[in-house]
């Protein structure tokens, strides 16, 4: 009994255990449900999976199923980020416990009962539990906002000038009165996430009442959309953006982002987050015609802040890696930069995102009528869905890179894990990007060989990634059976203790 209770205490009572459980849940869902679409469906794997698991899928209900699937995965990711925030930032123990417990119950209920309802017959009690799970996550979000309140004296730095040098406090972005702008950025992101959730919840209730589920990518090009439809479109865009922003802040905290770049980046992050949200919320107001412009204005400072994190962290990696050399050459600096894939990887993935998502998105926006809207809507849909699948997956890889460091991978295993994650995912994402943009350089009639090649690359990259994750998860499972496994070291560790010096 003690054997079990200790393991459960680790898995559901410690930050690293909670993160492990959520990663495992997402990994399993991704692996199983990934076999229901794309090339797996063509080669007949979908039928095998559906029959083996006894899934009950009606064609007419596809949109609703997919919405529940997206939410099931996204809520687990939101939970992982929340665990990271509650472990990295100072907050009252009560809040930490309450938030983690609530969000854990929330995402597990959402995932298990949501998927059970959507894919295994329609038990409406399950649907109720799915909604209850989502509500718990919302409530955990409200608690997180309260816990992060940055004007609380305990979380402030010493006022200037005393605080300038004390404990390096002066190296972080702050106001004269000691307000931590990094904490404000976390707070703003959490607060706007909670508010933006309503933009999905309210129309969700409205459409759900008549079971009128729809996918946003299917109503592109319609010149007139209802307020509720705009709200859904705004919701899905901003939630993914906020997950990305929160992760950028988390990575910054882990790497101990500071100095002049931090001082510039944090105000930009706060400004970007607020303006971006105002733009998205504006789609349901008469400001809708200018909402896109506001969104661009908001996205720019947020992306600049991420760029500053990259510049600072790469500079630090190069400086630290060549500290023993009096005049390091360019090659030595690059070698130092690439020495640790787990520290280099997160910001590299952020940079790579510009080629696969942000760059493509901007290109599409500025050449929409000249290029993309000359193509049929289905082509545009491929770009849209590919675009945000890649963005979601990039977020997942950044989490996994941080997780690799969290579980203290060392030596060759650290190298293999880190570089495999980076190379395999970037290979897949590059293939997806070329697939999305293929109509720029190849016609429908002759595309099949290229499509096949890109599919091989995508599937190879993603399948190997999942295999890598499976190996890690099996290793962690085996570790749980050991009396003095790694889990015993992790059970009391907080991420704040592992923030880099």
């Amino acid at each position, binding site marked *: 009994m003690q054997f079990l209770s200790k393991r459960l205490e680790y898995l559901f009572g410690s930050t690293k255990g909670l993160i492990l459980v959520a990663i495992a849940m997402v990994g399993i869902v991704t692996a199983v449900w990934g076999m229901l679409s794309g090339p797996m469906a063509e080669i007949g794997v979908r039928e095998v999976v559906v029959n083996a698991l006894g899934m009950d899928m009606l064609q007419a209900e596809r949109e609703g199923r997919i919405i529940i699937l997206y939410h099931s995965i996204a809520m687990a990711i939101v939970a992982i980020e929340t665990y990271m925030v509650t472990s990295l930032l100072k907050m009252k123990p009560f809040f930490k416990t309450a938030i983690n417990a609530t969000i854990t119950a929330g995402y597990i209920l959402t995932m298990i009962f949501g998927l059970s309802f959507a894919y295994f017959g329609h038990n409406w009690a399950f649907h109720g539990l799915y909604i209850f799970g989502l509500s718990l996550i919302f409530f955990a979000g409200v608690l997180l906002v309260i816990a992060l309140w940055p004007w609380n004296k305990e979380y402030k730095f010493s006022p200037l000038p005393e605080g300038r040098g004390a404990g390096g406090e002066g190296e972080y972005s702050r106001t004269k009165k000691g307000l931590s702008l990094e904490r404000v950025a976390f707070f703003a992101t959490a607060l706007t996430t909670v508010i933006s959730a309503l933009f999905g919840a309210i129309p969700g209730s409205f459409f759900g009442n008549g079971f009128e589920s729809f996918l946003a990518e299917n109503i592109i090009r319609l010149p007139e959309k209802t307020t509720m439809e705009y709200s859904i479109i705004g919701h899905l865009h901003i939630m993914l953006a906020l997950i990305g922003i929160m992760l950028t802040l988390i990575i910054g905290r882990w790497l101990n982002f500071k100095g002049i770049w931090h001082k510039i980046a944090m105000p930009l992050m706060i400004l970007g987050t607020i303006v971006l949200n105002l733009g998205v919320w504006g789609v349901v107001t008469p400001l809708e015609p200018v909402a896109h412009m506001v969104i661009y204005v908001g996205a720019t400072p947020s992306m600049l802040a991420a760029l500053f994190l990259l510049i600072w962290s790469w500079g630090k990696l190069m400086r630290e890696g060549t500290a023993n050399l009096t005049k390091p050459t360019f090659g030595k600096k690059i070698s130092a930069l690439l020495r640790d894939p787990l520290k280099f990887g997160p910001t590299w993935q952020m940079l790579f995102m510009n080629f696969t998502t942000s760059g493509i998105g901007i290109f599409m926006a500025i050449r*929409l009528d000249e290029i993309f809207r000359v193509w049929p809507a289905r082509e545009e849909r491929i770009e849209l869905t590919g675009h945000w699948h890649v963005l979601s997956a990039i977020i997942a890889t950044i989490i996994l890179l941080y997780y690799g460091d969290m579980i203290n991978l060392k030596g060759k295993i650290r190298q293999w894990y880190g570089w495999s994650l980076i190379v395999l995912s970037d290979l897949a994402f590059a293939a997806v990007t070329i697939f999305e943009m293929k109509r720029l350089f190849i016609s429908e009639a002759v595309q099949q060989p290229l499509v096949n090649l890109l599919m091989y690359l995508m599937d190879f990259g993603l399948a190997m990634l999942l295999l890598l994750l499976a190996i890690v998860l099996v290793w962690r499972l085996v570790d749980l059976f050991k009396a003095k496994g790694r889990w015993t070291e992790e059970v009391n560790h907080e991420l704040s203790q592992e923030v880099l010096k």
Partner: protein
Amino acid sequence: MRNVFLTLRRRSVLALGLVAVLLASCAPVDLYAPISTFETGVDPNTWAQVPEGEFYFGQHEDIASTAAYEIMVTDVTVTQYADFLNAALADGSVKVVDGEIQGYYPGDEFRGVKHEEEIAAGDWAFIPLDDPSQRIQFDGSAFSAQPDYTNHPMTMVSWFGAWGYCDYYGYRLPSEMEWEKAARGTDERPFPWGEEIARENANFYASRDPFEDMGSYGSRTSPVGFYNGQKYGDYQTLDSTSPYGLYDMAGNVWQWTGDVYEGMHYRFLRGGSKDTYDMDLRLWVSNNATPMYVSPGVGFRCVQGQ
């Protein structure tokens, strides 16, 4: 040393295998690769009667109604379109200009809505003649269908070309409602034949029909009315007609519909195609494109009456 050598050899074989797969997937596509020819026994000149009355429209099953009309049982075939072009060229209704067939379209009202483009009255391209995917041949004086494609749906035809064909014979393109009612009947089915889809119901992406080879040229059109329950060689089809007896209302080619919506120049397509997944063959799924768009996966059929 021997182990190192073996490891290297294994890695080389793996790498070579990967390169071979990649190179094989880069082979050029032969658009004129031989295609199986089958007689389906379905006459493309037949029409089906659709009575007036209510039906379930769209994914969310709104109640809508139409007047009575007649609709072609199959898509317009390559042969039918070639016959049209011969007649229309002879009486001056269409002309050959710069490698394409052009015909007159009276234009749409332009409202200047965001993203809307003006479709003015004038000559517009019906079909390109110089595109390698075009299945109509022109010898300088007459049009004909490529021999193996005579009973295949006419493709590589713009919305103007579809509109022009129907208009020439006094028909018209179906509205989205008419199209969906003809495909769905009066119940809530998602596919013309019923609730679920099997590979033998329709020509869709990777449906393993006799006309596709996903390893090389990909998917190709099937003859109109192919999915009628007949066995063609070793390939057994399922009878996949709609409640009103229409063929190919799901898969094979997207079909242009006739609605011109206020504030947008896009035209809507229905039915999914040989290039789309089964989910896009659900009856309420729509696609849209500019009226100038042509594709090897887009065709049409006409309606008359009302």
